[in-house]
């Protein structure tokens, strides 16, 4: 029998059906990926295996692990299963570790739970080994390091170290890289694959993005609305897709719009000249967040600004929005020098990353969308405002009746549409999209990107698309700027940069981007020397 065998697993929470007769199995050393949108039940399937479920959950069916039906075990017996047989890695590495305990204490605790008989020195040694195996060298990251000193990718490594320190037979990774930069993502995926090969573990990998898992999965399971719609071995999977939904996911994973190779010169709507900004750290040290950055965005032009977290793109964005002071350089909006003046703000608007956090939950959509009018000296009267709000809502694919709803009544994608309507309403020259699609599922992301492309042609608007993900930017921008350590290291027409990146950093970013059409990691030799630290 297989290592893990899920048989007819159904699950409901307070009477609402979440999973319906899910069947799948994992062999030793095999990577099985479940792919689906949020709400498809993929995370719930993994939670059911380790049985960390919300209150009010009722399950039926059987879960066999190592020839034992663990769905019949008591809660106490399940604690032992979690300690010895299943390891789990979660989506959000920033919060997955206890902030008040050292990483060493948290790994050692896991080892002690799984093997209570071990001596102090032995536990310590095993913890150091586990951290070393995930690429956290004991010299640079001693056991007494606190989680807040680590980056997201490094914290995810600690969580993986916790999981593998117990020598589990099955590893579950639930969206382990969704919250990470592309380069960190590639490294974590490679690491997981390596560990699975070395320890002959089974890996249940959950993701919303087919492109991310396509490289390392041996078997792919597509889920939708609590059911498995299609599954099969990776080999030949994309050549023989049967279900419509799988095809849609596949299309979304390597989405292409037409690309321009020549960009016409137009009047600049935004000009940045020699902008520099540093932060003081402590008394003497300075962090040069943005260093002598210059670029121009013409009318109707779409620019991508790409870089990893910490590269200074967020600081630059805040400077452009007039939310932050800077030391050197100037910003020109519509040809006029901008220093946070209210009258110039109407020319530039913003859509933020988090569709949940960027609305006041107590305001109705009508009021939220009309909000930018406050910045105008001559706002239209209430009737005109309302008419305009309706018009904008219709432009972004919502309806006039949505005006009296509250933000919580909408999905993430719909909320992002509301945010776009809000950004459009004062008819700005340029909209700044700060990771505006990073929190969305792939299919929804595609729809939003298409909407944005359509709006460019309707309003003649320019976009500055800020993202850590090259794939997203690729499809919607004319030109792209690559930023690293506060400096723009490469700039050019998007299609050219993608085909022929000049700067090594751009190359590294491109290589790290998941691409469903090329498989990197299946080549095992390459894999072994590919472990570098993040």
């Amino acid at each position, binding site marked *: 029998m297989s290592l893990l065998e899920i048989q007819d697993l159904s699950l409901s929470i307070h009477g609402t059906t979440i999973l319906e007769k899910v069947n799948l199995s994992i062999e030793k050393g095999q990577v099985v990926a479940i792919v689906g949108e949020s709400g498809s039940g993929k995370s719930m399937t993994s939670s059911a295996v*380790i049985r*960390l479920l919300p209150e009010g959950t009722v399950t039926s069916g059987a879960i066999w692990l190592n020839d034992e039906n663990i769905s019949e075990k008591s*809660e*106490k017996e399940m*604690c*032992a*299963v*979690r*300690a*010895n047989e*299943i*390891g*789990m890695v*979660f989506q*959000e590495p920033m*919060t*997955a*570790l*206890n*902030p*008040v*305990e050292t990483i060493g204490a*948290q790994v050692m*605790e*896991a080892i002690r*739970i*799984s093997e209570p008989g071990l001596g102090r020195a032995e536990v310590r040694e095993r913890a150091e080994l586990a951290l070393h195996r995930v690429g956290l060298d004991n010299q640079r990251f001693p056991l007494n390091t*606190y989680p*807040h000193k680590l980056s997201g990718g490094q914290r995810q490594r600690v*969580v993986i170290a*916790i*999981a593998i320190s*117990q020598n589990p037979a099955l590893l579950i990774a639930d969206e382990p890289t969704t919250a990470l930069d592309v380069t960190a993502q590639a490294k974590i995926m490679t690491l997981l694959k390596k560990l699975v090969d070395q320890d002959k573990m089974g890996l249940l990998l959950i993701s919303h993005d087919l492109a991310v898992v396509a490289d390392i999965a041996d078997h792919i399971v597509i889920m939708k609305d609590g059911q498995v719609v299609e599954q099969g071995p990776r080999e030949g999977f994309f050549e023989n897709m049967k279900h419509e939904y799988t095809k849609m996911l596949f299309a979304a994973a390597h989405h292409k719009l037409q690309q321009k190779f020549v960009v016409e010169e137009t009047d600049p709507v935004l000009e940045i000249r020699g902008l520099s900004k540093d932060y*003081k*750290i*402590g008394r003497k040290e300075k962090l040069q967040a943005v260093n002598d950055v210059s670029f121009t965005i013409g009318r109707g032009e779409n620019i991508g600004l790409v870089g990893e977290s910490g590269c200074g793109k967020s600081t630059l964005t805040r400077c452009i929005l007039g939310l932050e002071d800077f030391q050197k350089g100037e910003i020109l909006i519509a040809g006029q020098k901008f220093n946070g003046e209210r009258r110039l703000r109407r020319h530039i608007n913003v859509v933020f990353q988090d569709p949940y956090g960027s609305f006041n939950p107590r305001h109705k959509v009508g009021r939220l969308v009309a909000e930018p009018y406050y910045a105008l000296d001559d706002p239209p009267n209430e009737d005109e405002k309302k008419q305009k709000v309706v018009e904008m809502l219709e432009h972004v694919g919502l309806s006039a009746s949505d005006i009296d709803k509250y933000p919580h009544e909408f999905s993430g994608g719909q909320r992002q549409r509301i945010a776009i309507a809000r950004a459009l309403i004062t008819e700005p020259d340029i909209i700044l999209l700060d990771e505006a699609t990073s929190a969305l599922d792939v299919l929804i992301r595609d729809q939003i990107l298409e909407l944005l492309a359509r709006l460019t042609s309707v309003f003649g608007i320019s976009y500055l698309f800020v993202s850590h993900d090259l794939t997203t930017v690729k499809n919607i921008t004319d030109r792209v700027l690559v930023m690293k350590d506060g400096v723009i290291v490469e700039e050019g027409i998007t299609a050219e940069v993608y085909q022929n990146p000049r700067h090594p950093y751009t190359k590294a970013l491109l290589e790290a981007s998941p691409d469903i059409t090329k498989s990197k990691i299946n080549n095992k030799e390459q894999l072994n020397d590919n472990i570098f630290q993040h």
Partner: protein
Amino acid sequence: MAHYILKRLLSLVITLLVATIIIFLIIEVVPGDPAAYMMGLSGSSEAADALRIELGLDKGALERYFSWVGGMLSGDFGISYTYRVPVSQLIGERTLVSVPLTVYALILSTLIAVPVGVISASRRGSIVDTSLMGMAQVGVAIPNFWFAILMVLVFSTSLGWFSAVGFPGWDAGFWPCIKALTIPAVSLALPQAAILARVMRSSVLEVMQEDYIRTARAKGLSRRQALIRHGLRNAMIPVLTILGLQFSFLLAGGIIIESIFSLPGLGRLVFQSIAQRDLIVVKSIVTLLVLAVVLITFLVDLIYVLVDPRLREEGRG
């Protein structure tokens, strides 16, 4: 770390300085003659003049302020007008009652609140939770003087376990004093415990939703173990803030309980001094209470650093 402490110390000194200025302004500079006020309506104008000279009111405001602050720094708080003893001696005796009473009450309230909060949270929605929180609700609502009198009726009058009123003084030994402070401390502690238990409960509930608790469960810890090993320390952070506030509140706010039990504490001294128009004592006690509040806040800030390693960083934040 050192930077953090230094910054806190500086803000402590500034707060104190501002407080002394405000107290001084209100009592001595604001229109109205302190000497005439202290003499009362029946006092003759000659007596008021004499008092004015005794208080140094014939000197300039700035000079008076500096001699007052300078005196306090060297331990000289002046002579009480009504008691005719040095204010420092008066306050010293009272502090020896009030501070132990407050600490006693806080220990009791923490010992009650933390387990109640944890039990309630870990059995959320059960009968245990509902009844504990119901009791806490009642505890917040009951006036502590009424509860104090009830306790006296039960434990002193009927059972005779404790004496109803009075304080033997520390010369009588440790245990007799603790015994005398027990009922007052319980009366002070219960309403505070009720508030604290509610804070503890919601804090634990919030912490139990955190991702690191899920990580702990995935390691193989039971809910209970995860709560105790990973939840408690994190849940204590908001509770500490409330504890700090309660200390200051109890230290100054014990007037009613001190009066009921005839305890010679600070609260009663303030009350009596105000009634007897002894501005010298009032001024000093208010300043000392400010000092206590500021010191406690400082202490709580230091404990935060011990509990939360993220605050140990130098620099911003």
